[in-house]
């Protein structure tokens, strides 16, 4: 698979993330970089939302279940005007609203407080059931990590969503093949991953999670079946866009980030 070069918007969003973590000198870099294209396509082309009225009932709900990827979500929420971009400079600050994991009580546009892995899909399922009761056509998107899919709660929710045939619910897995300790293959192999989702009652498509056009097309085709929840398995690269951080477990979570590291990240993004 030859990866297309990142376009300006993808690079700019990564630069925003680097600036955000520069102040705090910490953050889950790899986890955020692998999510950028998924989030930009969701927010640019797919989701229905109103930053002026974040709780508008008619909105689509998007939950970042792998909450440690929040730098990517914050970049998009700031970009769309949910909060002033200056807020990014207070990432992890005592009096800021943007913590190391997203807090629904603090950040406009964050649907659920996550960070403990394995909570997003059950919550998303409940929200989707509520839309059905309300006869509302709002859709629910839950973005999961692949390591996160080690959690039993993910599969309890998957089984339940399958039972309810909830076509308004979409699980998107950021399948970057890495977790915290090592590759998913080494820690807990998920394969045959697409078949697992299928067997739990999902209609599944796989896509290159950094190919903006392919993501658009995939999301446009939702729901993949009229009577099933959908799963998008997005093949991604952990740390995508900063070559030295790609698939490098040291960049899963970084603290004490130095000025030199920030410069190296910005330079690498320029070259991506």
């Amino acid at each position: 698979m030859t990866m297309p070069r990142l376009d300006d918007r993808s690079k700019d969003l990564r630069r925003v993330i680097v600036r955000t973590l520069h102040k705090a000198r910490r953050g889950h870099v790899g986890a955020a970089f692998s999510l950028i294209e998924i989030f930009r396509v969701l927010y640019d082309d797919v989701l229905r939302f109103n930053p002026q009225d974040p709780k508008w009932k008619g909105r689509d709900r998007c939950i970042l279940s792998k909450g440690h990827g929040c730098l990517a979500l914050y970049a998009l929420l700031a970009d769309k005007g949910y909060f002033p971009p200056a807020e990014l400079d207070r990432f992890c600050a005592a009096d800021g609203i943007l913590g190391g994991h997203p807090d629904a009580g603090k950040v406009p546009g964050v649907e659920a407080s996550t960070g403990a892995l394995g909570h997003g899909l059950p919550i998303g399922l409940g929200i989707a059931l509520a839309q059905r009761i309300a006869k509302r056509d709002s859709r629910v998107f839950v973005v999961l990590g692949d390591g996160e899919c080690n959690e039993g709660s993910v599969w309890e929710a998957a089984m339940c969503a399958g039972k309810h045939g909830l076509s308004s619910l979409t699980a998107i897995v950021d399948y970057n093949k890495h977790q915290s300790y090592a590759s998913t293959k080494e820690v807990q192999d998920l394969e045959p991953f697409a078949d697992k989702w299928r067997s739990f009652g999902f209609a599944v498509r796989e896509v290159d999670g950094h190919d903006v056009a392919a993501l658009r097309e995939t999301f446009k085709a939702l729901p993949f079946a009229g009577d099933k929840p959908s799963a998008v398995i997005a093949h991604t690269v952990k740390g995508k866009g900063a070559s030295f951080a790609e698939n490098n477990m040291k960049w899963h979570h970084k603290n004490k980030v130095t000025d030199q590291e920030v410069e190296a990240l910005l330079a690498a993004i320029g070259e991506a």
Partner: protein
Amino acid sequence: MRENCLKTVYELAKTDERIVFVGSDLGVGVLAEFKREMPDRFFMEGVAEQNLVGVSAGLAMEGHVVYLNTIATFLSRRCYEQVAVDLCLHNVNVRLIANGGGVVYAPLGPTHLATEDVAIMRALPNMTIVAPADAPEMIRFVRASVDHQGPIYIRVAKGHDPVVTTDTGPFVIGKAVPMRTGGEVLLVTTGVGLQVCLAAADKLAAEGVKAAVLHFPTIKPFDTAALHAHAEAAKAIVTVEEHTILGGLGGAAAEYLAETDLLASRRFKRVGIPDVFPSVYGDQNGMMRKYGISADAVAATAQSLLAARPKAARVAA
């Protein structure tokens, strides 16, 4: 402290074949030497904590001594039923090495804080809870933990905490450690609260008030004899913990003191996190300061107890 804890487990495992290490999805390179040298007793099994507790119970049922390591809140909140049933009910030898007890992970927000872990673990029969104050005490504890019967919850503080303990002999599970004795004030603490209390005692001394400091590296079983003996000499008792004031060290002390008559003529106060999800990020020290877990605030609390009028016995008509 965590590194020293794991390193000691590794050292012990080299000569004790009962010892097994189980991790979830820890940081890259954790215990690489254990994995290299004893691969059949090293497990890194993914982000599936409930499964890991059950697996550890099974290993222990077959005679292993299992050291299970991951983030504190995911060992306590998430696995509570597995801990209660698989570990405590079966009373098996699993040691939960709980990273980031208290508010170590302040910048990561409330999903990563372990501020009620002691309270909920205390409520489980057969559970032992320890919270060493620094790395040397942790090492002494780990050595003492191998042959202990039953599950243990090990609350691990941040790294590179200042060394404040002075003991060098074997760690005795279930024994409190008097760090300073005698005085009108008794500061009762555990874990890194010890740093705070020693500094608070210094501050009080400068203000002309003598304060005793009683450190509980074991919170359960609770050393009531030590508390009793030291409380008798004091006018004011303050408990200090990096934990909710509900049900932790302060709760244990309050329960005991209330059931003796020791509180009748003494002032008592719990210092810790109030009944909230902490609402700020920043860092551990900042969050502790916000909730009065600092030398200045503890000294002031003690002073205010001393200044309060003595209790008069009151009986409802």
